[in-house]
């Protein structure tokens, strides 16, 4: 499999393999597709009552400067939350992901989009991300080759639902992968 050919067709890394993206982004002023539609948070909040009549899944794209609390009351109607990393070093979405999973109990897909690189992906997963839109070619190659640069000794109970972590020893903050 050459990743160059599949990057456009199979952009999403989820459950250990590359998959197609079934979601269509509908930015401000753009038509909302018949199928699964991803809307920016502001548009979702403004049009959510009209959108309620639709018969296809809804997703919401959240920028790092937007408060995840605003989305919280509506999560039961949302099948995907995409959190954007405009730069890989912008860690705000890490907090948003944890809040989604741990505070608001969200069980749908939490997807990392934007500047997603392999060295941050294990941390993202521990914060609650379970899908990753990966455009970076070296990252795609490494993932395809089975690499996952995790340090499997965790010193924080992140409480994410995306992977099973079990207590390690007597320290309440230490965990191992299950």
């Amino acid at each position, binding site marked *: 499999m050459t990743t160059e050919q599949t990057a456009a067709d199979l952009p999403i890394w989820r459950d250990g393999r590359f998959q197609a993206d079934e979601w269509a982004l509908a930015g401000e002023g753009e038509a909302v597709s018949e199928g699964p539609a991803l809307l920016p948070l502001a548009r979702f909040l403004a049009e959510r009552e009209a959108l309620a009549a639709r018969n296809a899944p809804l997703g919401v794209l959240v920028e790092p400067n937007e408060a995840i609390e605003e989305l919280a009351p509506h999560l039961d109607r949302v099948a995907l939350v995409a959190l954007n990393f405009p730069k890989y070093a912008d860690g705000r979405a890490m907090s948003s992901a944890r809040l989604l999973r741990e505070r608001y109990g969200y069980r749908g897909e939490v997807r990392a989009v934007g500047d997603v690189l392999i060295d941050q992906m294990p941390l993202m997963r521990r914060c609650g991300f379970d899908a990753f839109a990966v455009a970076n070619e070296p990252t795609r190659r490494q993932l395809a080759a089975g690499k996952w640069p995790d340090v499997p000794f965790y010193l*924080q109970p992140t409480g994410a639902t995306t992977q099973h972590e079990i207590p390690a020893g007597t320290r*309440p903050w230490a965990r191992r992968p299950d």
Partner: protein
Amino acid sequence: MYRYDEFDHGFVAARTAQFRDQVERRLSGELTEDQFKPLRLMNGVYLQLHAYMLRIAIPYGTLSARQLRKLAHIGRVYDKGYGHFTTRQNIQFNWPALKDIPAILDELASVEMHALQTSGNCIRNVTTDHFAGAAADEIADPRPYAEILRQWSSIHPEFSYLPRKFKIAVTGAPSDRAAIQLHDIGLELKRGPDGATGFAVYVGGGQGRTPMIAHKVRDYLPEEELLTYIEAVMRVYNLHGRRDNKYKARIKILVHETGAAEITRQIEAEYEEVRKTDLLRLPESEIQRIAAYFAPPDLPEKPARSGALEAAKADSREFATFVENNVTPHKAAGYGVVTVSLKPIGGIPGDATDRQMEVVADLAERYSQSEIRVSHEQNLVLPHVALDDLPALYASLKAQGLATGNAGLVTDIIACPGLDYCALANARSIPLAQDLSTRFGSPERQKEIGELKIKISGCINACGHHHVGHIGLLGVDKRGEEVYQITLGGSGDETASVGALVGPGFKTEEVVDAVETVVDTYLRLRESPDETFLAAVRRLGQQPFKEALYGAA
């Protein structure tokens, strides 16, 4: 001392393997320098003026003799035979090759050390009082809490890409030797109303371009709530700290722009939410288990007064000066805490050769329960020395040029690496420190001046802590020329204050004279020899020093 268990060993080994892979990908060109940068920084690797620099963590400044020997070995094999102890209780090696760094990390792991999070926009090495566990004025040993924070902050998935670096300091004594009010979070151990242990919490202090004293956001936090509360502070900062301008990205700016009352409200609200999960509450049993690693050493009982010490003091004035300045009272009668000065007259502050490190390690084994501390003032400390042993210890130190009796005096200067090493610097710091040390070097002069902290930064980033120097010197570039500004009245202790600029800067060839003018003005105007430089500046204000430096207005 804390000892790694299997989990901790596994953690550090896995992290080193991960970084080895990242270095290989960088060397092969797969990772760009831009992509490699945050990865190497979180493993302590900087790209400096001439070479990569490796900064190794010395958690809360505590080292065993075995660990210090390993640092000596690294200095000898991978560097040019020396290391540089920093103002954050760490050590830096200035000349390692990038390809050797994974091997150095393996060497460190073999003695339960690492270079994790000594750089990068993450929670850095937690610092504390270098006299912790030994000082007579301590309420409780702060190191168990610093160790808990070290563990919890290691590769924290949520807090590894913060707006900017984040520094936490803990003090266990009312005399604050850890400068907690100049940190992003400062923790002061105290007793609660019920006699239990807890913390006063300060947030938003820092130096750099915009020095600020921290605000107290909590007067009392029970110890079991430590991680819960810190997580709340970190989340508020991670979500709301500025990311548009790296010079405005520290939490002090967030606190300043949001207001202390509002930020306190946000932290408390987040804290209430985090508490509900109950994931981070520290069980008493676990605090005690960690604290047991730091149990006071079993020191043989001694009389408070040592005949051997008194006889040696009477015999040698130089030794008596050393004892007066470099030995601090210990909790246990008949013992002292010894500062090993890395500030020889005319020398480079904080540098130690591999041989000197070996000797200090030997002496720690013989005289100080195999324990060494690194102070943020860039000295080493032997924390548990019997007063009877001081004469012999002194003789051994002296043979290695390590017996300078100047702790806390005018020649005990803090200086950043400056333009000799650093890619950020505008001016040299080390040669100025050397010139000042030489100028004030005579024991009589130093004794006359008394306690005086000079701190030198080679640029506005303030790594040399000039803002909290009783006399601070800041190197700036003025049309291609190195110029030094003088600030007066700064302090990093429990009476923390930021020094004020006294006037226009001085050229390299003028600045030592200018400092001497300031010192002479103090000597002339002090009420008595008991009035320290800092006390005199606080009483007199800037005016007399201005007049002495620039003439009457």
